């Protein structure tokens, strides 16, 4: 649905070209929640602002529904933007307008008849749960409530795409959770394509379907969230995952030194997470195991587990084969 083909972008600063995007190729399917993660300055905002052409590419093409949007004229561009909602880290609500007026704003810009605006605004206010706050001004709301107004406003014109630039970065963990949940719900309800920009892997783990990792204006890794999260390839991705899991690699490796036997990491996904595989394999192959570290959690709706084990005695090779046969992913950390 959204496709970047070799997109480059550089900014002119004091007459010099500062590159921000260096050849982005990306495909975002309709109905997905697509996460883009990267460190500060990686080019995330610049990338997402190309989808509604708030930034124009220096080179390359951007297709939406197969159409090259960079070819549109000013009027065509404005019409296209009405089909793309956007929410922001600092909400960007109009402080001079009430909640209801803020949500009505994009409809008024589009020339929607007043009666219809009224009905639609009430619908949206109810959908995001702000019935009691319709006549308040943004300054009277909490951060989470402001972002709900932002979401309602972004949905007002019935867009097919929603862009979220660090939409939860200014919110506390609990509010973040509720806003993410709202995003996941509207993704399903309206089959809305959502592009989520963040520097927190956790945001993507909770709601993302696919993820692209951005580093210095390049996509260094992309794939389904579960694959990227459980088996990160690029060093930048590995760092994000470790941050999200609170793992200190050096500490972990230091701890391994005092442990005898082979050290392996098992990854369970989906149903296998709840199967009694470990015990079965231990009994059949006579290995002894101890759990060095591990976690069981969810990636969006999929349960997963990841355990680091040491194996001693018995037939470890047979055990590894049995794990693989049971559908677990086996990585040998120390043979």
């Amino acid at each position, binding site marked *: 649905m959204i496709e970047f083909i070799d997109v480059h972008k550089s900014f002119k600063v004091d007459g010099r070209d500062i590159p921000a995007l260096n050849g982005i190729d990306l495909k975002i399917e309709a109905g997905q929640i697509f996460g883009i993660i990267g460190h500060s300055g990686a080019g995330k905002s610049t990338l997402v602002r190309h989808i509604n052409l708030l930034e124009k590419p220096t080179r390359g093409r951007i297709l939406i529904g197969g159409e090259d949007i960079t070819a549109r004229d000013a009027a065509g561009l404005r019409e296209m933007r009405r089909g793309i909602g956007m929410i922001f880290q*600092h909400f960007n609500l*109009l402080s*001079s307008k009430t909640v209801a007026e803020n949500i009505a*704003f*994009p409809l008024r*810009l*589009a020339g929607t008849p007043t009666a219809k605006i009224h009905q639609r605004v009430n619908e949206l206010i109810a959908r995001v749960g702000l019935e009691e706050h319709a006549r308040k001004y943004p*300054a009277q709301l909490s951060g989470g409530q402001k972002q709900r107004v932002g979401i309602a406003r972004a949905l007002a014109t019935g867009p097919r795409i929603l*862009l979220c630039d660090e939409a939860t970065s200014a919110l506390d963990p609990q509010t973040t959770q509720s806003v993410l949940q709202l995003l996941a719900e509207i993704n399903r309800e309206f089959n809305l394509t959502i592009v989520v920009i963040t520097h927190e892997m956790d945001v993507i783990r909770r709601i993302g379907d696919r993820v692209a990792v951005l580093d210095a204006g390049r996509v260094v890794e992309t794939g389904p969230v579960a694959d990227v999260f459980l088996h990160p390839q690029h060093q930048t991705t590995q760092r994000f995952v470790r941050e999200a899991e609170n793992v200190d690699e050096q500490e972990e490796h230091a701890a391994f030194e005092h442990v005898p036997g082979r050290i392996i990491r098992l990854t369970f996904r989906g149903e296998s997470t709840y199967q009694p595989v470990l015990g079965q394999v231990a009994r059949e192959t006579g290995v002894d195991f101890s759990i060095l570290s591990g976690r069981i959690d969810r990636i969006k709706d999929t349960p997963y587990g990841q355990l680091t084990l040491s194996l001693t005695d018995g037939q470890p090779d047979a055990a590894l084969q049995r794990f693989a046969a049971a559908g677990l992913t086996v990585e040998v950390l120390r043979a």
Partner: protein
Amino acid sequence: MNELFVNVDWSDIWQATQDTLLMLGGSLLFTLILGLPLGVLLFLTGPRQLLDQPAAYRVIALIVNVLRSIPFVILLIVLIPFTTWLVGTSLGVLGAIPPLVIGAAPFFARLVETALREVDRGIIEATQAMGASTRQIVFGALLPEARPGILAGATITAITLVSYTAMSGLIGGGGLGDLAIRYGYQRFQTDVMVVTVLVLIVLVQLLQMIGDKLVRHFSRR
């Protein structure tokens, strides 16, 4: 009271106050009508703003700066032919209004520009992302968001105009300034001067109060 202000003719004071209010009202009206679009234009054509027209910006900014750097007394005199051509006289309340407007409009335009620059860029961007045209951004987002700042600017402008009206007394503009100069200064009737100054102080206080009230009413931050 009357012993203290022997030279004061209260009906003269009342007449002069009315003249000053008329000059102030008329010139403020046209200053706002001219200065607001000029300020918006300054903002829009400015560097990295919505229209970003460096050439246009430099021309408008130059005109504004030149008008602002001419002392108002000089402007009054230089503009006499223009004023006569425009309103048929360079004297009295009517003759005072054109130079007052030309003196104050560029000043107000700068204050408008500053107020617009205070509007969060994110709001402009969000409005743009909704598919708004530049016109819609200006009228739908920028002006409402900058309204408290613009009203504060209008208040400052109104008060500046009060002191300008007093100066226009120099060339027979009428009003309290005229009275103060003709009686208070030229005929050494200090009591007349004191009364006119007191009336001017009350006027300025009133304007500031109304302005502050309006700004507070429209501030939602």
